[in-house]
């Protein structure tokens, strides 16, 4: 009796250890893979942002800031069939002026900013801003508005069909998953309107812009496997 209880205890201990350390190990490996995936995507996006900024700077004969924000479905170890959403962003600035900055035949000063969210490009509006020169003169310069806040809302519809069919030879298992992921990204733009009358070091901001970008991601995944009867 005593021996059996001892054995059961040892087995429970082994099971408990395996359950704890096994799940910890799988979690650690999942984090490692997830980190690698983000790193790889981030690197690729940085290259892309730089080349896109280069192109816009050349086309506009100006100084361009280009930001890319992209949502992707990445690995998620806890829900491997479904995956998880990941947000990657990168930004680059390029100045490529031939002669005076700005496109020929315009009064633009060649300062531009672009925001690309999931493939949709937004050119930020240009406003006149009063700045003080080193000599103390006040002049107007044309600059793009500033994006001061980015918000994302998302909805995810996920369905999973799991069936098992038994025949005399084997058991056929099928799993079918469908994900519909919708992300609404809102960009908030503002510009510093004027110097604060109470505190000359601070600006008053005019938050006058808002863009909503809807991105959708659909994916189906199916897997069928057979287990023969022994």
């Amino acid at each position, binding site marked *: 009796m005593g021996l059996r209880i001892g054995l059961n205890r040892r087995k429970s201990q082994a099971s408990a250890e395996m359950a704890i350390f096994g799940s910890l190990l*799988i979690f650690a*490996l999942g984090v490692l893979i997830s980190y*690698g995936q983000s790193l790889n995507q981030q690197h690729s996006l940085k*290259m892309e942002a730089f080349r*896109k900024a280069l192109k816009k700077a050349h086309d506009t004969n100006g100084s361009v800031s280009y930001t890319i924000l992209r949502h992707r479905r990445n690995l998620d170890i806890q829900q491997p069939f479904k995956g998880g959403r990941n947000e990657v962003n990168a930004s680059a600035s390029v100045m*490529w002026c031939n002669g005076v900055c700005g496109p020929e035949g315009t009064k633009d000063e060649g300062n531009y900013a672009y925001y690309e969210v999931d493939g949709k490009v937004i050119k930020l509006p240009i406003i006149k801003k009063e700045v003080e020169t080193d000599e103390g003169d006040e002049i107007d310069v044309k600059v793009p508005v500033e994006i001061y806040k980015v918000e994302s809302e998302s909805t995810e519809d996920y369905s999973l069909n799991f069936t098992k069919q038994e025949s005399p030879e084997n058991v056929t298992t099928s799993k079918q998953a469908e994900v519909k992921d919708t992300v609404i990204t809102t960009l908030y733009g503002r510009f510093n309107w004027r110097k604060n009358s109470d505190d000359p070091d601070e600006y008053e901001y005019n938050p006058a812009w808002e863009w909503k970008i809807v991105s959708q991601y659909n994916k189906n995944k199916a897997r069928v496997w057979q287990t023969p009867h022994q």
Partner: protein
Amino acid sequence: MANTSSVKNKSQVVIEFILMFVALAMLILGTTRIWVFFNADFANRQPPYEQTRIAAGNPEGSPGQWLPEGYSAMYLTEDWVFKGIPEVEVERER
């Protein structure tokens, strides 16, 4: 009798160790293959990017050109992870 019990316990431990070791080795192998994919993806992307640098920075070339024509991105597939078979062959420069 005590000896038999001790041998049984040891055998149990050896079997558990072998099973866990195989499972662990498979997990580590899979993770390594996925990391090798990230490395290969980088190797697939970087040379074409470098090759287009001059054209991309030249007004007479193709300013701001992103990756060249004929470049195909790599995708992490089950064949890669479980069998080590790539979807796209990465060219090696010598």
